[in-house]
């Protein structure tokens, strides 16, 4: 391993170090605050390291990994999300029944798994990354183990994730049998333009596992229960970090083997996208639990994202990156609000609890409004530009069926976002209960972070060119 390769892996090594440092801090009986602040600084250092090594990219660490601009963007998004999730976690776990400290070990390990996914170019690293992500998530989801929902959610995730891993391994084995390689580029060379049935079967089995992680229909059955049962910060982690990582590897694999050029694979993905958009939006219609609602909405959103995956060209990749960015910020904002409003005993998940929020907490409600409008894809927000980019890439390739479904289902989707919105602005029940803020510093930090995120969301909605150029610049680094 050369020094350049080591340098390129620096951000990922820092990420791995973060969990070890947390273990040591726990061993030396440091307080939750110290761990939180250290974790925050470590994540910042990962981002700085990423920025620092940007000039040496792309670097291939053969045969498993490649650090390029593509990975840098996705890792950046992941770390950014974890920064925010970490911030949410402090207040949430400080007030809950469980010891909060071990949580951070799992959180950072899981993040490492997601980050490894973004740089993997080989089935082995893909599998390692995915397992690292999943295994930590089992524990994270069931972290508040005295709550019924949490245990149920954790078990559900454990069983289904294990099954999907088996599918993944079998799919990989079939592809290996056909091509004799596990490296994306080597596979692409072996297969050429026409893909054999065995290969497509292998891909199909892998799709089951990937689809499970992304919660696209028909592999979405865990989503609502896990979203509901997991602690709010963990839910936001699942909705952002874990999905970003898996989507990144799907995108890289698709690009490498030109999956979309194969009509059968293309049809499978198009069907998955259409099913997810329809089912996600329709199932969300009648939800009264905001966490479940967001679960179904995220199913629909990944349907939209697969539409950007379908063209398999540069425009599609850029569109999906922008969309993921807007989606992650939006989701983080929404779950941040849920975290802030949650009480010791239960998460703020009942829609009824949000009635008249605008008149009680105008700023929080305004921030949530921005997030909901962004999810619905209304102009002035990042979600609109994301949806616009996705539609553009779809229309460019003439993918009429998915595009039309996207449009029609997002009209359906607007209904449930509006339902939340009208609840926010409805007449408030007149109970002006002033809760005592327990940790003013972190509370205010979170408040500020939510406002900043909402402003960013509006910012990229009105002036998207900066972000778009940034994405283009990074993608130009190393087209492996």
């Amino acid at each position, binding site marked *: 391993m050369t020094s350049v390769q080591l340098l390129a892996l620096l951000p990922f090594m820092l990420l791995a170090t973060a969990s070890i440092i947390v273990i040591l801090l726990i061993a030396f009986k440091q307080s939750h605050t110290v761990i939180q602040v250290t974790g925050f600084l470590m994540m910042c250092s990962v981002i700085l390291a990423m920025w620092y090594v940007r000039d040496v990219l792309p670097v291939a660490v053969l045969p498993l990994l490649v650090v390029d601009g593509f990975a840098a963007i996705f890792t950046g998004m992941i770390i950014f999300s974890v920064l925010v999730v970490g911030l949410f976690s402090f207040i949430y776990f400080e007030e809950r029944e469980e010891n909060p400290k071990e949580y951070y070990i799992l959180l950072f390990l899981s993040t490492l798994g997601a980050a490894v996914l973004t740089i993997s170019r080989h089935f082995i690293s893909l599998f390692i990354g995915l397992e690292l992500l999943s295994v930590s998530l089992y524990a994270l989801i069931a972290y508040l183990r005295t709550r019924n929902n949490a245990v149920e959610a954790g078990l559900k995730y454990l069983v289904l994730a294990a099954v999907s891993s088996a599918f993944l391994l079998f799919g990989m084995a079939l592809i290996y049998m056909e091509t004799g390689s596990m490296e994306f580029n080597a596979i692409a060379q072996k297969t050429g333009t026409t893909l054999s049935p065995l290969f497509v079967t292998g891909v199909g089995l892998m799709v089951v596992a990937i689809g499970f992680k992304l919660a696209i229909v028909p592999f979405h059955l865990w989503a609502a229960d896990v979203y509901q049962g997991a602690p709010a910060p963990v839910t936001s982690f699942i909705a952002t970090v874990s999905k970003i990582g898996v989507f990144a590897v799907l995108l890289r694999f698709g690009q490498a083997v030109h999956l979309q050029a194969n009509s059968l694979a293309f049809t499978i993905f198009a069907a998955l996208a259409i099913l997810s958009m329809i089912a996600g939006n329709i199932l969300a219609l009648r939800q009264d639990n905001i966490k479940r609602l967001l679960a179904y909405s995220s199913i629909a959103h990944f349907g939209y994202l697969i539409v950007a995956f379908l063209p398999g060209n540069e425009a599609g990749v850029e569109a999906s990156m922008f969309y993921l960015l807007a989606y992650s910020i939006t989701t983080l904002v929404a779950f941040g609000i849920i975290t802030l409003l949650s009480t010791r005993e239960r998460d703020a998940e009942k829609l009824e609890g949000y009635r008249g929020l605008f008149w009680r907490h105008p700023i929080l409600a305004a921030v949530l409004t921005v997030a909901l409008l962004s999810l619905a894809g209304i102009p002035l927000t990042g979600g609109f530009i994301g949806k616009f980019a996705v539609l553009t890439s779809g229309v460019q390739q003439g993918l009429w069926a998915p595009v039309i479904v996207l*449009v029609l289902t997002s009209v359906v989707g*607007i209904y449930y976002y*509006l339902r939340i919105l009208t609840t926010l*602005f409805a007449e408030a029940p007149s109970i002006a209960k002033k809760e005592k803020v327990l940790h003013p510093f972190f509370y205010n930090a979170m408040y500020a972070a939510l406002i900043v995120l909402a402003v960013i969301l509006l910012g990229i909605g009105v002036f998207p060119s900066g972000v778009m150029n940034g994405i283009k610049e990074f993608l130009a680094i190393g087209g492996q």
Partner: protein
Amino acid sequence: MILAWMIIILMAGGLICWLLARWNKEVVKWVALLAVLLDLILACSIWWQHGGVPTSGANAWLIDYKAAWVPTYGISFHMAADGLSLVMLLLTYFLGTLSVLCSWNEVKGRIGFYYFNLLFTLTGISGVFVALDLFLFYFFWEVMLVPMFFLIAIWGDSNRRYAAYKFFIFTQAGGLLMLISILALYFIASAQNGAFSFDYTDLLGTTMQASTARWIMLGFLLAFVIKLPMVPFHNWLPDAHSEAPTAGSLILAGLLLKTGAYGIIRFVLPLFPQVTADVAWWAMLLGVVGIIYGALLAFAQTDIKRLIAYTSVSHMGFVLVGIFAFREMAMQGVVMQMVTHGISTGALFVLAGMLKERLHTRDIGRMGGLWTSMPAMGGVAMLFTMASLGLPFLGNFIAEFLILMGSFGSNVVITVLATLGLVFSALYSLRLLQKVFLGQPSSHISLPDLSMREMLIMASLTIAIVLLGLYPQPVMNLVSPVIKGMEKSVSFEMNNHQSVISIP
């Protein structure tokens, strides 16, 4: 730049209103009024500068402003105003001022957020009237939607949530289909021009196969006829209009519906000249259906605001017939109809709002004999119901006359049927007046007549409608170069009695 300033003033005014409401509720109203008045003055100053000289030839744009926005996609901040835009802007700020005035006392709660939404709706509307970049146009098209949704959903009547959802979802469905059409057009045009651009002027000369053009055109047309609204897409209108607060109804009827007509004139006709001629017959037919159906339903309503809402459906049918007649005269009539309908129906909604403020009901059955206690209001109501039924000397007469006259040359049967609409409009208008203001008084509580503020609102509306009825020439002068300019691209057969449209 002056156009961008108009937008900025409204947005800034809205934000200031929201922020100020915490400290002072009175100032908020004045800030909102000031912002709209400032824009009205700006629009008038443009009129003053350019109105006298009828521009002709290739460049019909009075003002043109362009700045880069998202160069990656070829999106620019391109705004321009020609005579048509200017007329619509003047109407927007005129009615905008009145909408601020008429909510002066009506809105009690959450005043800052209310004016924020009001001004942002106006921002979106004025943006729609001046945007020349199709992305920007879509952007404003959506921007006017969300605040309007809040206006209905928060300050509306009892059934407000249902109405607000319906309004939003109908319009959004049309809007998204339009977005796909815009994108399709964008890629076809960029393949021809070799550069990505959403600019209206770049997209104007795009040639494409008739079948492709038809689909793309339908996407645009659907968005616009939903907004207009054309039967059978009118379903959202009665609910939204009747549940919205007075200012909301005023803006909906007076301005939002006009954006649909404006969109057809500005985008559908010039961008797809051939295929629009193919659907013209159907559009005219549905227009006529709208005229008659709207009038009949208006006659059957017991809710005063719903009644007025259905008259809008009827009047907008005239607009549709006029546009698709492809005659210069009819098109002049359409623009007149847009302006006069905005004023007369707006006035009726304001009156309905005043009645509701006093009687706390919208049920016509519980009104009656109000003339004795409120003679001034009765007189004004008389004037505007007469305007609505198309009495000569008032603006609506000119508009409907021009439309009928113009479309007679294009399609005799449909025009004859459309004329029936005038008869029906007499029915519902007279019924409205008779039930509400004449007859036996239903209660003996003395009601206060128009206050100074209300008098001011009604007086300005009255002056406007009478002036337009007696001397419509200024509007026509502004608009005629635009229509003449379209003549070239749309191959109007002006004043020519040979039918352009083959009846299938």
